[in-house]
């Protein structure tokens, strides 16, 4: 169904999409500024308008549940949602670009699931906090107003909820994605049961006492271009790195299994690790790979 609320200024659309998830008038939609205003309106495909009340939301999953005073409407049973895999043919039902007006049904698109993967996206410069499982779609669903729409199988069974417009964190390309209902079920139940949103501990990305190359006893080559390859410049005598056998000109390939494409990546990843945690580095030395484990704690104990 079509949802209308605040927005409409400076390129912000004042509409999005939602789906009925029970015969009691509960509507699942995306948590966005559209719901900011009092008097959010929900319009069915038959053109019937309802004032909607916000029941609750989950800001990390970016979903919200609204309630309209209507019973017995046909709805999606998201508990019976279907899991999809790459290649699964799907349909997407959204109010993209607000094309559907009055008593018109929302727009249907057809496509296939590209991948099932962890979400890694940004809006503008900001990384989206949600990093759970999503379906990437090859239908162009990442459109204004599409958030809160539903992805179904070809025979109409619910699969996933379309999220807000986001770009791939690594390539900057628009991502067409949807969050599987299996990921949303618990949060929806919690909202429906009237419990407050759990104050999820959104783990701080920055450690209080961050690790750094100098602490580990080595330095990187000067970071001159945006993508300077992370070569070890020098290894300090008596440092942890020297002990572990790191040599100058080693290239840092990954840290704790996460690929490091540049000096900046190394600085950022080490910054997320606490000083008392061990660090596993993979190094490229000539044409071979070397794995080393470094720990400040062990070294302190050893001394």
């Amino acid at each position, binding site marked *: 169904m079509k949802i209308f609320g605040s927005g409409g200024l400076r390129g912000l659309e004042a509409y999005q999409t939602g789906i009925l998830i029970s015969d009691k008038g509960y509507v699942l939609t995306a948590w966005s500024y559209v719901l900011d205003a009092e008097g959010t309106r929900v319009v069915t495909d*038959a053109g019937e308008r309802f004032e909607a009340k916000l029941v609750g939301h989950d800001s990390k999953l970016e979903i919200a549940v609204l309630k309209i005073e209507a019973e017995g409407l046909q709805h999606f049973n998201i508990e019976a949602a279907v899991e999809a895999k790459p290649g699964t043919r799907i349909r997407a039902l959204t109010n993209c670009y607000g094309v559907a007006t009055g008593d018109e049904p929302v727009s249907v698109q057809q496509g296939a*699931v590209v*991948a*099932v993967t962890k979400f890694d996206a940004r809006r503008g410069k900001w990384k989206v906090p949600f990093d759970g499982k999503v379906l990437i779609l090859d239908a162009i669903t990442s459109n204004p107003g599409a958030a809160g729409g539903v992805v179904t199988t070809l025979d109409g069974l619910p699969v996933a909820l379309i999220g807000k417009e986001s770009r791939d964190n690594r390539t900057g390309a628009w991502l067409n994605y949807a969050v599987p209902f299996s990921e949303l079920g618990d949060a929806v139940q919690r909202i429906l049961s009237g419990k407050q949103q759990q104050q999820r501990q959104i783990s701080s990305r920055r450690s209080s006492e961050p690790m750094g190359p100098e602490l580990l006893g080595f330095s990187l080559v000067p970071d001159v271009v945006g993508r300077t*390859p992370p070569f070890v410049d020098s290894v300090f005598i008596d440092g942890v790195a020297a002990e572990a056998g790191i040599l100058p000109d080693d290239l840092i390939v990954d840290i704790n299994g996460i690929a490091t494409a540049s000096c900046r990546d190394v600085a950022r990843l080490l910054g997320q690790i606490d000083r008392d945690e061990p660090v596993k580095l993979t190094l490229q030395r000539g044409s071979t*790979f070397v794995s080393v484990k470094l720990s400040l704690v062990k070294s302190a104990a050893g001394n």
Partner: protein
Amino acid sequence: MIRFAFVLISIIQAWLVAAVLCCGQSAEYSQAIDAAIEYAQRSVVQIETIGGVAEAGQLPVLGPFSGTVVEESGLILTASFCLKHDPASIFVRLSGKEQDKRYLAGIVAKDESRHLTLLKIDCDEPLVAAVFGNGQPEQGSRCIAVGKYFDRQWANVSVGVVSATGRIWNRAVQTDCKVSRQNYGGPLVGIDGKAMGILVPASPGSTDVSAGAQWYDSGIGFAAVVDPKSAAFARLAAGERLRSGLLGVKFEGSDPNDDPATVAFCLPTSPAGKAGIVEGDTIVAIDSEVVSRIGQFKHAIGPRYENEIVKVTVERDSQNREFDVELAGEIDPYLRPEFGFQVRGVTVAAVVPDSPCAEKVQPGDVIESVGPSEVTDFKSLQSATSKTIAGTTLEIVVERDGETLKLEVQPRNFAASPPADLPGPIGSEKAEVVGLEMAGSANVCFAIVPQQDGESKEEMPLMVWLPTPGPVLQEDLVAKLKPLCLKWNVVVLVPQSLDSESWMPDDIESIVASIEKLSGSASLSLDRSRIAIAGKGTGGEMALLTGFSQRSKFSGVGLIDGQLGARLPSFENLPSQPMQVLVFSKAGLDAAGELAREEFEKAGFPFALNPAAMGQEMETTFRWVWFLNRL
């Protein structure tokens, strides 16, 4: 309530209709797609890079991309676009049991024609090479774009159809699958799981490896067609850089869909020239493919590589002749030769000091022949001189005081700067400012026309001067330009932009119309071989666009303190369409301008940058126009 249900039901009904139409085979069809993905993804690997150059002003594009195993020994093809940043190291990640293992990859060679890079890894695990389909896929048939961007175990896929074959001059298959960094380097496979090509960004209008990348979510995607069993692939695997094969012929026709492939020019050093093809030959077949238009020629040559031999059939004097031509990867540009004289008709009017003809040819000489070509008028003289090759010695026959003289001359590369030590015309004393009302436009163009004294009126050169858009202060402009018009006997035409704020491509038509209107006036005779278009700032940028859009009208373009760019129409340098470029830039060229200059010089256009001191721009521009048709 009922209404909502009704519409939901109506949607479901629509699905049911679709189901009846196509889903009779739906389960089978899904299975087929699953099987194809399963089959194809075994040959797809994930590739990571470390380091490299980030492009200025762009968010760095990081993250892995895909590659397709083409030989079990460890040969992997990927899209050159993904290695554009020139990384310090390239790693291949496999999906087998040792999936955390990295293999260091080396670049074997690049296929510049298809925008592909061949990588090699030394691998102890068995690799599965992709199986390539035989023959051309059918337009409209199902296909799947396969990549390993998100995960190295499970492929990501986009399902679609073959939109067309023979795209990008017969080098690629087009698909409506979403082709992007999510699958560049992976294969496009059919429902049988066999590869049709390797996914790359591509665009028919550009040879840049990034061209077409902006279409990632548009439903326009390409897979470069390769055949690992071909001789060309063997060359690539042996480490040879593969470039597109070029014949080295130029056509005069502008409509590739209509005009026959009649050779307008080919350098004797080009593959075609070496094989014996000459201008005037019409190409009628390449190997056994019939060619009746320029477009067919481009499709026939498009997929071929450097050093391949093609059989070219040409029609010459109503007879077909066959030539075996070895294609080249690079063609010498056509460089305009300079003899160093200016003529009226075929009579020498001035000789450039220190030029090849200095102290050999004299003013007043009547030229009778250049090399093997007899000349009778300016056109035939221009044609004969422009087709000679700089540095080769040839004979010019002139008549001087009733005597016939044979002179040996070695033309040089055309000097772009106007000759400094050569006196100009006598000049005029009066000039008339003529208003030109253009039909259908409120704008009034005007022209400054020098009034020549005496009976014999010479044809005068014309400079079209494009002012800054907006209302033109005619008096100021006339005051500035008139003294130079008088001194150099050059007619100046000042058109105005239709839009009061900017020059638009639509203005080109009205600029050309204003020239025709001016030359139509009875009292004026223009020298068609000396028409230039110039301007300052945005006016100069418009002059560049107009000049290169109307190559037959203009033989010179002048840009003063504007942004130099080389993305221009009709950028082909032909002997029959002389074009010189004059650029003044107080601040010097910026990075984009430098790139553009390289493009102009690579194409062989005489290109002069700041040929005179600052403050002398206009004076030098008029001098340049006066000597524009020197040979």
